């Protein structure tokens, strides 16, 4: 039912109306059973104001390194694999320099740099274009800076996909469960349904339990996660000491994923407890 | 009780601007002069054995009702509830959605709220509820029920003789409730009390005794036709010799008697005569069945049947094979919906076949009566007529669908086909005022008297308004139709609202355009006016 519905909504173009009217209705109709005081954040949760990641490309030397990172993410989040680019759903993936940082490439740059796969994920921008265009507020900016995707609300209009300059969003053209190995489904995390848009959520479910995103954990220090609003954080110290670039900064979305691409002299910075 | 055209001086300056708080049930009908017809004469009712025959006047306080009039009415309602499913159903299922409210020409033109079809029906429904439904008996006014008082009876009479049974409301009703059916019942009830109108009871008595509404006696009919023949000879140089009451003719021709007497119907009659002569049709007129129309239909079902019986009886006596009917509105409603049921089966007749074209009129195989517009359309389609439409060139014609033939039969395209072949300038009125949505002339069902002229002018206003539209936009100067009452009353309507527009029957235009064998060159039309009006003057 739901898949047809989403298709229908998309085609009929009533998504916007349904979204706006629907939200209003839902809010109007809901007679809260929960008291605000009844809910609280987990005591052990990681908290921050503006989560970000610094990726040291020098440390992602081999394909295996990278695959370990992407696999970690996709397996715990039940991201399906249909083995074709048309239906591909990606939360974290790779691209060449040229495609990752268009306009920055030049013919004299090192060959290996040109060929190097760059690890890409949602930039959790400060000014996310996707949030602005979402008619149902299914995607929104959390207080901690995560650009969150609420699958319950997504009506599959794909405005966000058109708006995102980084290609960080994927649409479920097919039932994602058909692209998963039933034996390897992570029972603790939901799948999605056909007809919704999904993307990296910065492992909000892990942060709530006090652990860092899966990609960071699996990167052997190549990815550094932290609160960019905290001057004492490790990530701030790295950004202060290294030259970093971001994807398409000229668009003004203020991405929060930074890339360290030059120099092999980067020293491991001790973790902050 | 009737309001005269006077007002006290102090009333002049302060007309009451406040609508009454009272609902319609508590607002008795006010008999306003020039809106109702005179009461029936006792002697006319006696001729046809109607009960409670006496002279009476609606304007007078005392209607000289029989002692037990309430009983008579209630008994009458009961009787009819058992005889007519339509009546019982239409009393029960109206939801008062108001879709019909602004469809009635009398309401549009006059504004009296009780002329909304729904309220006109509610007048009778309120009585029905009081005496025939449990909720009405128990809850009274809350359930919309009302005692049958003299005021209520008068209201019923007043408004049921302000309905032309045109069925326009029925077209828009989601349940097909037909005010015409309800009005018929209401009128039957009033007739049980002798409360007919003079304009209806006179023609009924005439028709019963003499064969036609106008009371034309046999020799008057023939001599009247002689006049047409004289005129036709003047126009065409051809002397036509029609026959009357001739046994063994193939076809009996029946037309409303208005065509024999009242202009412009007479020109239509001339058209028939010319057409039949040119075809060499083996037909005859009857002086006994000399009326196609049926004013009995405006009193009671039984009376209508009694008057209608003459047509088949005469066809049988004369031994004709089938019947052609002339241009008339309610005549055809009666033929289409009632005649065969009342007075059939017409098994002594044959299924109509045009002797000229050989066309079988399949749609008339039981009644054996063919509409002349069907007959003529078939002739034209088969190329049997030589027509010169240019002879009607000084006319810019529009077509009025008569309510009875439109909504009680559905003869819409045949006359238009004929019209397009006999004249060159034909303009339709606005879409929502023609075909099944056509507006009544405002004078049907025996309302075409003179004393109610104001009512007629009001009721005809929506029709006239549409005619005025085509007159102003296309210069239309002729309003054609296939109804004798239209021909008799639209003239008056046009004279008041849209001067310069004349009225004619379809076959007048056919007569004009028909090129007859051996005719002289025509210089006049059937009205004896110069054929090429303007050129002749210049």
């Amino acid at each position, binding site marked *: 039912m*739901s898949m047809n*519905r989403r298709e*229908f909504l998309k085609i009929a173009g009533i998504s916007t109306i*349904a979204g706006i009217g*629907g939200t209003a209705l*839902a809010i109007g109709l809901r*007679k809260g059973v929960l008291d605000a005081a009844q809910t609280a954040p987990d005591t052990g949760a990681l908290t921050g104001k503006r989560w970000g990641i610094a990726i040291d490309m020098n440390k992602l030397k081999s394909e295996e390194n990278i695959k370990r990172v992407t696999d970690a993410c996709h397996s715990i989040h039940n991201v399906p694999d249909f083995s074709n680019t048309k239906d591909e759903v990606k939360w974290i993936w790779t691209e060449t320099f040229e495609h990752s940082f268009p306009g920055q490439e030049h013919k004299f740059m090192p060959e290996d740099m040109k060929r190097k796969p760059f690890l890409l994920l949602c930039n959790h921008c400060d000014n996310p274009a996707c949030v602005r265009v979402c008619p149902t507020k299914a995607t929104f900016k959390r207080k901690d800076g995560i650009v969150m995707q609420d699958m319950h609300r997504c009506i599959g209009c794909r405005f966000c996909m058109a708006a995102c300059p980084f290609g960080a969003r994927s649409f479920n053209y097919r039932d994602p469960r058909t692209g998963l190995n039933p034996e390897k489904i992570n029972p603790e995390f939901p799948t999605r349904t056909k007809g919704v848009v999904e993307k990296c959520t910065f492992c909000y479910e892990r942060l709530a339990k006090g652990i860092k995103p899966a990609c960071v954990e699996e990167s052997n220090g190549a990815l550094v996660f932290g609160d960019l609003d905290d001057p004492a954080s490790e990530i701030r110290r790295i950004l202060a000491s290294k030259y970093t670039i971001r994807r398409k900064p000229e668009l003004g979305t203020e991405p929060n994923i930074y890339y360290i691409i030059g120099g092999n002299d980067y020293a491991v910075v001790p973790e902050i407890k | 009780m009737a309001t005269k055209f006077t007002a006290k001086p102090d009333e002049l300056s302060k007309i009451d601007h406040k609508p009454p708080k009272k*609902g319609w049930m508590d607002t008795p009908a006010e008999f306003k002069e020039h809106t109702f017809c005179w009461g029936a004469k006792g002697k006319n009712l006696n001729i046809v054995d109607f009960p409670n025959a006496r002279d009476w006047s609606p304007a007078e306080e005392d209607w000289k009702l029989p002692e037990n009039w309430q009983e008579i009415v209630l008994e009458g309602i009961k009787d009819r509830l*058992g*005889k*007519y499913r*339509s009546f*019982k*159903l239409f009393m*029960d*299922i109206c*939801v*008062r*959605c*108001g*879709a019909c*409210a*602004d*469809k009635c020409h009398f309401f549009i033109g006059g504004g009296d*709220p009780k002329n909304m079809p729904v309220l006109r029906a509610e007048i009778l429904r309120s009585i029905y509820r009081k005496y025939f439904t449990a*909720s009405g008996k128990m809850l009274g006014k*809350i*359930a919309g029920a009302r005692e049958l008082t003299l005021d209520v009876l008068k209201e019923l009479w007043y408004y049921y003789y302000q309905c032309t049974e045109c069925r326009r409301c*029925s077209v*828009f009703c*989601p*349940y*097909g*409730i*037909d005010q015409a059916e309800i009005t018929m019942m209401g009128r039957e009830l009033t007739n049980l009390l002798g409360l007919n109108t003079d304009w209806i009871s006179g023609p009924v008595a005439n028709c019963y005794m*003499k064969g036609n509404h106008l009371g034309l006696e*046999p*020799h008057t009919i023939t001599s009247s036709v002689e006049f047409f023949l004289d005129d036709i000879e003047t126009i065409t140089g051809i002397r036509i010799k029609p026959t009357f*009451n001739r046994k063994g003719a193939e076809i009996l021709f029946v037309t409303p008697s208005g065509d024999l007497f009242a202009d412009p119907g007479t020109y239509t009659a001339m058209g028939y005569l010319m057409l039949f002569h040119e075809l060499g049709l083996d037909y005859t007129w009857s*002086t006994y069945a000399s009326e196609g129309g049926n004013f009995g239909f405006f009193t009671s079902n039984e009376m209508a049947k*009694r008057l209608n*019986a003459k047509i088949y*009886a005469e066809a049988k006596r004369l031994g004709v094979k089938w019947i052609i009917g002339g241009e008339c509105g309610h005549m055809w409603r009666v033929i*289409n919906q009632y005649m065969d*049921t*009342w007075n059939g089966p017409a098994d002594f007749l044959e299924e109509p076949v045009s002797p000229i074209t050989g066309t079988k*009129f399949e749609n*008339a*195989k*039981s009644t054996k009566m063919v509409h002349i517009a069907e007959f003529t359309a078939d002739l034209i*389609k088969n190329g049997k007529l030589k027509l010169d439409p240019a002879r009607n060139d000084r006319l810019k014609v529009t077509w009025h669908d008569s309510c009875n033939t*439109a909504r*009680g*039969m*559905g*003869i*819409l*395209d*045949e006359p238009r086909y004929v019209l397009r072949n006999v004249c060159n300038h034909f303009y339709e009125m*606005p879409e929502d005022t023609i075909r099944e949505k056509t507006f009544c002339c405002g004078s049907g069902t025996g309302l075409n008297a003179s004393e109610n002229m104001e009512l007629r002018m009001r009721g005809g206003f929506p029709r006239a308004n549409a005619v005025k539209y085509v007159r102003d936009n296309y210069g239309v100067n002729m309003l054609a139709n296939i109804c004798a009452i239209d021909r008799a009353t639209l003239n008056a309507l046009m004279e008041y609202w849209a001067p310069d527009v004349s009225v004619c029957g379809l076959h007048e235009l056919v007569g004009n355009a028909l090129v007859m064998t051996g005719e002289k060159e025509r210089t006049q039309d059937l009205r004896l006016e110069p054929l090429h009006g303007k050129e002749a003057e210049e």
Partner: protein
Amino acid sequence: MRILFSFFAVIALVLSAYAGVKIANLQFLFGVVIPYIAITIFTLGFVYRVLKWGSSPVPFRIPTTCGQQKSLPWIKQNRIENPSSISGVIIRMALEALLFRSLFRNLKTQLKDGKLVYGEAKWLWLAGLAFHWSFLIIFVRHFRLFLQSTPSFIKTIEGLDSFLQVGVPLLYMTDIVLLGSVTYLFLRRVFIPQVKYISLAADYFPLFLIFGIAASGVLMRYFYKVDIVGVKELAMGLVILKPVIPQGIGVIFYIHLFLICLLFAYFPLSKLMHMAGVFLSPTRNMVNNSRMVRHINPWNYPVHVHTYEEYENDFREKMKKAGIPVEKE
């Protein structure tokens, strides 16, 4: 006055159900006895009314012809609006009953820029259609409570009805449409002067009643929750003729049920019978073929007519003088 009477009547009914259940604990009366009575009145009353209509014959063939008749073969007949065959009538009736064809035709006479125009007036049609269809869908949806295992078509209807997947529990579109249209139908009776003038208490009452039913249903579904399994238990108890009153169903349910029972019981006594009546309306359900096939009036009786013989006796001399043939010389 007529409005207030109907309004307070419905309010009183709501209060009596509330008091009956909340204070007097008459759950069995409101949950079992009254529903049985209501459904009995409804069914028998409905049948009785239809049979009563059926006991009156249709003496004449009186269809309202809204289009070209069947005549010469080359003239295009309007087979639906002026049917000459049963199939035409079936289509005509179907259009009427399912799509409110006649109301769709509605026009309004109005003044626009100083000119009189006959404009389209589709609001009544639209609201009427929305009202009846949403009512039907809601009615059908409720069968999930009366059937042990719910047939798939009812599930499909529910799925379509909650298509927009808004809110929790999912919002039924028909709930909104019904409330909206019934409100419109009420407001037009208040604000359109003609319609107000013709409206009786009997017109407002069912509107208030239906509004009450819809509103209590919506409240129950979205706000004052009741134990739906308990409701099904009660409903199933009724239809398997082993009535039970489960504990703890909220009073709002009994109000809802009571109003429905009233609507059912009121139905055969009122104009709501138009539901059956529309199918019996002779102006719509008849074939216009009375010139082709003789229609029989069961009570047709011989009448007195002025015969030709009497006529000739009156005028014989004059006829002879005018050269008109006569039977007797």
